């Protein structure tokens, strides 16, 4: 009874919190769209120029907007003191962590993935790459959230974690970026994308199994520094 209770209790609470401020749900998405808009303006509006960059830009924007959403992942709990209660009572902390990350992914990674085909088209992403890139994001964004969660937990006790978080986490994101972009390249070249997608899937599974433990450990430490 304890473990499903921990998971669903946290899920319900975080869900309520997310719904209470629908703006916050829409925001990483807005950032994603904005970064993608900056590109044609900063680089070139011509589709001939944009097409080969499109997949990379989509992925970089996904990385950055995930990153931006991460800062608040545990910050508020820490500030309000609820993190202490969580560490004190939520004994196998991983379950509460998993629930938190799931809510976060549902609010950021998922809509971002769903929006990717539309934004891809705006960036003149070749049609052949459209669905492979989306599939890559569907598998890759959970990895981003899981790895990012570790960084967020490690930096939560720092008052200005924001950019240190970026520094910790972006290098970890790079393999995901490289795999994700190569899916698009393979697709454009007419080669099979399944192997790379399988790697992404394996990465997601691995991250799912390991990251929550790292996060739980980091949170326990964060509470101690109080």
């Amino acid at each position, binding site marked *: *009874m*304890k473990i499903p*209770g*921990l998971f*669903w*209790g*946290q899920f*319900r*609470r975080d869900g*309520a*919190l997310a719904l*209470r*401020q629908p703006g916050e749900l829409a925001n990483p998405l807005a950032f994603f769209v904005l970064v993608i808009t900056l590109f044609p303006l900063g680089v070139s509006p011509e589709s001939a120029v944009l097409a080969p960059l499109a997949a990379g830009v989509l992925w970089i924007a996904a990385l950055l907007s995930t990153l931006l959403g991460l800062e608040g992942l545990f910050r*508020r*709990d820490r500030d*309000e*003191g*609820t993190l*202490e*209660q*969580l560490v*004190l*009572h*939520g004994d196998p902390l991983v379950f*509460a962590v998993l629930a938190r990350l799931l809510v976060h992914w549902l609010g950021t990674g998922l809509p971002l993935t769903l929006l990717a085909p539309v934004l891809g088209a705006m960036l003149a992403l070749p049609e052949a790459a459209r669905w492979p890139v989306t599939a890559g994001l569907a598998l890759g964004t959970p990895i981003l959230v899981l790895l990012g969660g570790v960084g967020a937990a490690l930096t939560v006790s720092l008052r200005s974690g924001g950019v240190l978080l970026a520094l910790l986490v972006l290098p970890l994101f790079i393999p995901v970026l490289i795999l994700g972009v190569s899916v698009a390249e393979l697709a454009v070249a007419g080669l099979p994308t399944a192997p790379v997608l399988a790697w992404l899937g394996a990465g997601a599974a691995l991250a799912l199994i390991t990251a929550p433990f790292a996060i739980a450990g980091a949170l326990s430490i964060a*509470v*101690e520094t*109080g």
Partner: protein
Amino acid sequence: MDTPLLTVRQLRCERDDRVLFADLSFAVARGAALQLRGPNGAGKTTLLRILAGFHPDYEGEVSRAPGPLAYLGHRPALSGLLTAEENLAHYLSLTAPGTAVSEITDALERVGLAGYEDVPCQALSAGQQRRVSLARLPLLGIAAPLWLLDEPFTALDDRGIALVTTLLAEHQAAGGGAIFTTHQPLAPRPGLETLWLGLEGAP
């Protein structure tokens, strides 16, 4: 009933090269309450955090009877955007999953917040937030045999203070124990002891 809820032996803690306490030994038996007193900066909060496991920089031995622990710190530990009811429901999902919602309503009534169930906590006054936080105590009751309370009387009005005193007495009567800090002198009663920190021995 024999083993104390908490035993502390030879506890010593330094912060910033200043010794807060050394050679500190005491025990909290079932049915006992211990008031920590001492001037500002004496180390009361630090001691409570050590006992709760939040401050590992100490020497000495702390042994605690098994079972969950109720710890209320300086902050009320509430999500400002959630209502009192939601906050408590989440707390219960951590500590006692499966508790009925009616108990939350009862606890809120107990702490004088009937009618405020649906207000987001950030729209409550300082004392009201404190009360929501305190509503955890009747909800846990003896399920958490040891309560650690850091200045539970802060921001409370007279009735709030009387309420906390009653909650403590009930908990003691049920066989629980508590350690709490406060600067206010309390009326002496059986089972209530005082531990002074930061002054050699007495006030």
